């Protein structure tokens, strides 16, 4: 054990220095709570274009402040990569230098990661497409997809995948698309699709040229998804689809839907479902936005009235759709369960506490706030390190067992708890809606607080997660199911 200077450790924060609460009135600082006056302004979804532009500019300023001030080395796990991987990182850097220029970076939409997380889609224009094609050719993108379908075709190596992700992010290149098509449909198509389906859909989906929505949930089939009732009846060369889907994200923008449809009404519950690909332009499809609790409309209802779907659009066999879709749901659980949401919100929460004065005192100096912040930080760190632990396990070819099964419930609960503390730090300003300029961070944390409900419910509501943990993780008996 090396000698260290105990006094330094006690009195100075590692790599952090003195508290960085900005002076009142400093650029980007929020006015002290007491000086704020009430002022009317519409919430995010009714803001005018000009108000939105002003708001985005303000958010950018605030976020760049966090990036500089808060996201310090302290928060990065200092885990060393072996030489082989260091070399690999150099190769990736050299590739990026050759294929993504400063001009390309300048043409990126000027939004931080958090703003992107709140709804701005990654680029899919010509330059982005060219970059993705080159990256796939080099094996840096879509590594699990065969080259024949536009993928990178590489053996699984989570560490390389992590390095690529880090470098692409740092250089602001177009990322691998993680939306529903690439993340959920592609693994399913690769495992169960026909050659024609793969040729037609895989590459275009990976490049973002075909956008997908998922048609699973129905008004009467949520947690008990297999009880779904939208029907498909074979007439000649077409399935005629009738019924309704709900909670369909991006249905208005999507070109196609992958859907679970009951085609074999006489079979047992799970054995009567087929997996269909449906062109959203087909006559008889009616998409209606579903206004959610924050007033925005991310989800939709989709109605099918005698929608004719070519017979060849089925993935897998008749009645096998439930089993075909399993690979999709598994991919979704991995997609939703990660610590980065909680981390970003936590960093925002600390920044907020440093900038906010409540009843004449900086929130960060309130002992209760400090206690709750450190309590949550321990949980955020646990979530991050658990992610590293799972990554290491998967690099060794093991599944994470219990540590993997709990991830989604753990991180979604945590993200919500962190944003709830942000509401308390905001004091009575927590009443102000997203988009209201006088709300702390223009209400971005309020927006998170609301949207984390969707994060908790999507991909299996919390009690479904608890069943999975209890039954698969702890070996407890299944409860009665029909």
């Amino acid at each position: 054990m090396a000698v260290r200077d105990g006094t330094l450790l006690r009195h100075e924060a590692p790599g952090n220095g003195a508290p960085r609460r900005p002076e009142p009135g400093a650029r980007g600082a929020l006015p002290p709570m007491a000086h704020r006056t009430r002022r009317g302004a519409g919430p995010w979804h009714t803001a005018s274009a000009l108000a939105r532009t002003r708001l985005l500019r303000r958010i950018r300023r605030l976020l760049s402040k966090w990036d500089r001030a808060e996201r310090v080395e302290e928060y990065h796990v200092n885990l060393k990569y072996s030489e082989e991987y260091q070399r690999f990182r150099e190769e990736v850097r050299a590739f990026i230098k050759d294929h993504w220029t400063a001009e390309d970076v300048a043409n990126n939409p000027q939004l931080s990661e958090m703003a992107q997380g709140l709804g701005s889609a990654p680029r899919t224009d010509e330059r982005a497409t060219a970059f993705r094609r080159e990256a796939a050719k080099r094996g840096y993108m879509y590594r699990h997809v065969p080259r024949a379908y536009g993928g990178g075709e590489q053996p699984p190596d989570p560490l390389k995948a992590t390095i690529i992700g880090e470098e692409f992010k740092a250089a602001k290149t177009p990322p691998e698309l993680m939306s529903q098509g690439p993340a959920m449909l592609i693994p399913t198509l690769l495992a169960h699709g026909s050659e024609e389906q793969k040729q037609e859909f895989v590459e275009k989906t990976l490049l973002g040229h075909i956008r997908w929505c998922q048609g699973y949930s129905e008004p009467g089939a949520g947690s008990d998804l297999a009880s779904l009732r939208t029907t498909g009846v074979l007439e000649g060369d077409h399935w005629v689809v009738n019924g309704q889907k709900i909670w369909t994200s991006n249905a208005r923008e999507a070109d196609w839907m992958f859907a679970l449809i009951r085609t074999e009404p006489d079979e047992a519950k799970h054995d009567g479902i087929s997996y269909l690909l449906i062109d959203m332009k087909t006559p008889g499809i009616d998409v209606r936005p579903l206004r959610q609790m924050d007033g925005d409309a991310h989800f939709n209802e989709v109605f099918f009235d005698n929608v004719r779907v070519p017979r060849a659009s089925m993935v897998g066999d008749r009645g096998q759709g439930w089993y075909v879709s399993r690979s999709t749901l598994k991919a979704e659980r991995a997609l939703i369960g990660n610590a980065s949401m909680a981390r970003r919100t936590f960093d925002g929460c600390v920044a907020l506490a440093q900038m906010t004065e409540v009843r004449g005192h900086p929130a960060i100096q309130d002992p209760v706030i400090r206690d709750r912040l450190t309590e949550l930080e321990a949980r955020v760190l646990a979530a991050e390190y658990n992610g590293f632990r799972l990554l290491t396990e998967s690099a060794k070819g093991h599944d994470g067992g219990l540590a993997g099964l709990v991830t989604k419930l753990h991180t979604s609960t945590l993200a919500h708890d962190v944003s709830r503390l942000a509401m308390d730090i905001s004091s009575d300003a927590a009443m102000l809606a997203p988009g209201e300029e006088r709300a702390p961070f223009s209400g971005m944390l309020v927006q998170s607080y609301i949207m984390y409900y969707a994060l908790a419910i999507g991909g299996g509501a919390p009690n479904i997660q608890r069943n999975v943990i209890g039954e698969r993780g702890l070996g407890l008996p299944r409860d009665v199911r029909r």
Partner: protein
Amino acid sequence: MDFGLTEDQSLLQDSIKKFVEAECPPTRVRDIMESDDGHDPALWRGLAELGVAGMTVPAEHGGAGLELLDLALASDILGWAAIPGPFLGNAMATAALSQSDADAQERWFPSVATGETVLTVALGEGIGEWDAAAVQTRATGGKLTGEKSLVPYAEIADVILVTAIDDDGPGLWAVERGASAMEITALSGNDLTRRVAHVRFDGASARKIASGRIAADYARDVGLVLLAADASGGAHRCLEMTTEYALTREQFGQVIGAFQGVKHQLANLACDLEPAVSLWWYAAHAFDHIQDKTERHAALAKSHLTDLYDTTVRYAIELHGGIGFTWEYDLHLWFRRAMFDRAFLGESSYHRRRAADLAGW
């Protein structure tokens, strides 16, 4: 990158676990905790043979020369099995001795490595005061005067390492067993598997072995990480016992684990506990390799894991129903250890306050 245990570390944990399962099942834990001094020299020798006593003693002094992560893995198993004895105080004192003068190391390390010499530390004073800067015990001309609270296994320790101040400021002094003008009063603690005593010095002979607060800080940070690991092991054991009970206990015509009310409580415990394992792994790793993160991560891990232990044990007892509240059923051994882990070296909110201060907030 490798965020996980090495094969050697897994093997180490397995062998300690096999040993304690065979040699110290709850029946023997109960025998030891009902004995006068709560210490079983034969058990301690057995653990020492596995390297538990001298794990972090440098190899040149006959120890295993391993790191805090390895020691914490041992603490995890000892917590899982509720093993009684002087492990914690001995390990903290070993860390303090590693920052002490060469004479002291040569004198005690070789016999600590074999388990023949048992060390302990006396850090705390008054109520809740564990910081070296606040020490009141005074050293003058090789004599100590003052009082130390909650000293682990002071009665059986061969050497007590004591924080005190002299004209040069804080430092560490060694007092050998049987020193005159030292009065050890055994305290009746909630945890029956780890004994504590009140120690009063009234001019006891002591040797100064370290200056400054580094040795004391080392002892504290090692203690915090080992308590976190002990809590992790103990909480896992409570979850295992309760899951097992839920799989066998039948009510309303089925095993109670099939009821979602029971299943979901157990799932919640697993959900909080499993990711938290990586928190004390990392805190131990930081102590070994990333020194500027040591103090904060040790504080965060201790407060978080010991709070989780308390929550886990609470649901474990509730889910057991009446049987969980009996003396015969073993669950209270862990309940008691949870009380120790949570309070020793200071309560959770104290360490969270420290972590907030250390962040520079």
